[in-house]
């Protein structure tokens, strides 16, 4: 019996020691401001090198260390949600329009309104207003804008040369794109003219909708615009594209993403957001064979719009390192850091007037196309349940892409599902 008691004592003693030391570590990190590490979480591995370089500058300047973690897009939101539930969010992380409202409404992001007002380095008017707006609620700011992105058309110059076709121009219509895609598609299935996956709304078919003066979600974010007559008109382009058989089958597109298909010479054209640049710059095949032009325009309305979006640098509302975390975000948003982000080709920056550096960061690509797309920009459609209804409408489009229903039927079905999801918000 004595043995048992002594065993219990040993176990409980060692247990208290373990827990006690854990607590004291936590306490220490709350009080001491020197020598602490700010955790940073992002999802894009292509931006890692550039962001790391900027953060290294920050550490040299302030002495505050940062620890950056990359989690792929899908796992990012799972992980962020789980850490939010257990009050263990990273100190600093990226926010996206799809989820911002949900995180802001649940008080998970630090209110930085006062910090912005007190800062001598930040003037909120220097950033694109709509992106600032994405991360603010009831007049309070919950993140600082990191970047801005637009969409443009990438094409394989070699295939255009081989087919004796002229390269896409700045005033192509969507119909011209389809005609050229037909010419570029080889009958043996080795090359397809174009690719656009069902779940590429932002970088793809949302733009056709906006060009036709349709919309995905109403301005008050209460109703779906997928069944709007203009939307349906815009989506006729999509139906034509599918009927023309100029794209790989849904099977192939679901197995290999558009960047892989373009980078392996499987497709001659595809649309991509400006954030893909850092990946394409490093791709030998794309650097040698491909270039970029503006998106085509709608023949009837003449509109040549691009969906745009921008990420925000957010801070956890419960971070024990509030001051240091703010310093990180403040630094990343300064003019110098934003210029550096553009010059390094990480992304276009949210700080207005910094795009020149980005355009020149890859001289073999006509990156001006992305800047020109800013002439007519439509905000990325979002609402509190954005993730859910995006998935729902993509599922409907999948049926149309597979030819089970028409694009119009998919739009009507998608509108109904989307409205039902929004009603539950």
């Amino acid at each position, binding site marked *: 019996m004595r043995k*048992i008691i002594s*065993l219990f004592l040993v176990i409980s003693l060692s247990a208290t020691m373990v827990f006690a030391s854990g607590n004291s570590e936590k306490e220490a990190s709350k009080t001491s401001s020197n020598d602490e590490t700010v955790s940073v979480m992002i999802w894009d591995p292509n931006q890692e090198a550039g962001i790391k370089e900027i953060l290294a500058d920050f550490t040299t300047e302030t002495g505050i260390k940062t620890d950056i973690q990359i989690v792929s897009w*899908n796992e990012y*939101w*799972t992980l962020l*949600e*789980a850490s*939010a*539930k257990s009050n263990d969010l990273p100190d600093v992380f990226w926010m996206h329009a799809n989820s911002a409202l*949900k995180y802001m*409404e*649940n008080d*998970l992001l630090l209110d930085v309104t006062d910090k912005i007002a007190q800062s001598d380095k930040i003037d909120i008017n220097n950033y694109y207003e709509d992106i600032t707006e994405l991360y603010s609620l009831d007049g309070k700011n919950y993140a600082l804008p990191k970047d801005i992105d637009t969409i443009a058309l990438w094409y394989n110059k070699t295939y255009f040369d081989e087919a004796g076709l002229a390269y896409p121009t700045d005033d192509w219509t969507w119909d011209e794109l389809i005609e050229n895609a037909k010419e570029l598609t080889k009958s043996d*299935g080795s090359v397809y003219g174009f690719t656009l*996956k*069902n*779940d590429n709304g932002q970088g793809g078919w949302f733009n056709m909708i906006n060009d036709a003066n349709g919309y995905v979600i109403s301005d008050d974010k209460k109703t779906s615009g997928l069944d709007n007559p203009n939307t349906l008109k815009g989506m006729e382009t999509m139906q034509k594209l599918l009927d023309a058989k100029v794209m*790989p*089958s*849904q*099977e*192939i*597109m*679901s*197995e*290999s993403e558009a960047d*892989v298909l373009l980078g*392996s010479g*499987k497709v001659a054209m595809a649309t991509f957001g400006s954030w893909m640049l850092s990946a394409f710059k490093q791709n030998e095949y794309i650097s040698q064979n491909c270039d970029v032009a503006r998106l085509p325009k709608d023949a009837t309305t003449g509109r040549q719009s691009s969906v745009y979006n921008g990420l925000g640098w957010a801070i956890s509302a419960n971070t024990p390192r509030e001051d240091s975390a703010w310093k990180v975000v403040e630094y990343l948003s300064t003019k110098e850091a934003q210029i550096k982000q553009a010059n390094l080709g990480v992304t276009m920056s949210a700080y207005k007037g910094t795009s020149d550096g980005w355009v020149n960061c890859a001289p073999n690509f006509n990156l001006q196309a992305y800047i020109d797309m800013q002439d007519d920009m439509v905000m990325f459609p979002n609402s509190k349940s954005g*993730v*859910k209804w995006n*998935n729902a409408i*993509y*599922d409907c489009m*999948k049926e149309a892409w*597979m030819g089970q229903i028409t694009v119009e039927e998919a739009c009507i079905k998608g509108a109904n599902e989307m409205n039902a999801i929004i009603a539950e918000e």
Partner: protein
Amino acid sequence: MAKKGLKNLTQRNTFMWGWILVLPTVIGLVVLNLYPMLSTIFQSFFKTGDFGRGNTFVGLSNYSKLFKDKSFILSIGNTLKYTIIEVPISIIISLVLAQLLNGKIKGKDIYRTIFFLPMVVAPAAIAMVWKWMYNSEFGLINNIFHISVNWISSPSIAIFSIAFIGIWSDIGYNMILFIAGLQEVPTDYYEAADIDGASGFRKFYNITIPMISPMIFFVVVTRVLAALKVFDFIYMIISRANPALEKTQSLVYLFYTSAFVENEYGYSSAIVVVLLLIILLITALQLIGQKKWVHYN
């Protein structure tokens, strides 16, 4: 009397020590398994708010919604289909391999190691490699044989392609267990059968199988459980845009999507509760059925 008292004391001592030694495992089970299980069942009667805040009690409505959900019904079918393909085939192949590698073969250790290797590799890594091999455009299989088959995106064959990976990665583990079972079988039975002039197949069927039936039973039960919970291969290989999704997604995959992508924790809890019931039912049937074919002596 004194003797009996002493025996009692030792017995009690053994009893106490037994409990102390299993205590860490018991605590682990309660904290990590039992508690989450009960709270999942509890949660399945709620509609959960953002980040698990503001849950509202909705009774059985998650369940009634579940049985109207076409993809849920399909995913039960997919899960059962996967189990029915994967478990018997992997067990038959590994049983035959175990029999072969139990004999006197040159380099049998090397073979055993090779067959066991898939078991050592993380399922996610296995899935990544197979995903590439199966790729219809750039994959190894289609390029070697100059064919064009949509192994993982054609709704009619994708589930078989995935079950094949399951079989491939399970064989080694099953085989090792079967070899262990085979080594327990006394050689006199085979000698007696040889004298009676029994064929190799007859010996296998009438001696080996009954003798290792407890081991086969163990493997069947654990493999069925694992197959009903299949997730990693499907999650890594089949994306949401894949035309074969509806015909391949398992219950756990559906649970994952609804819990961690769409954050419907109440609804997803209902899915796993149904899975739990299915597993309970199938395991109970197996335990009853074993009396007919498992020989413990």
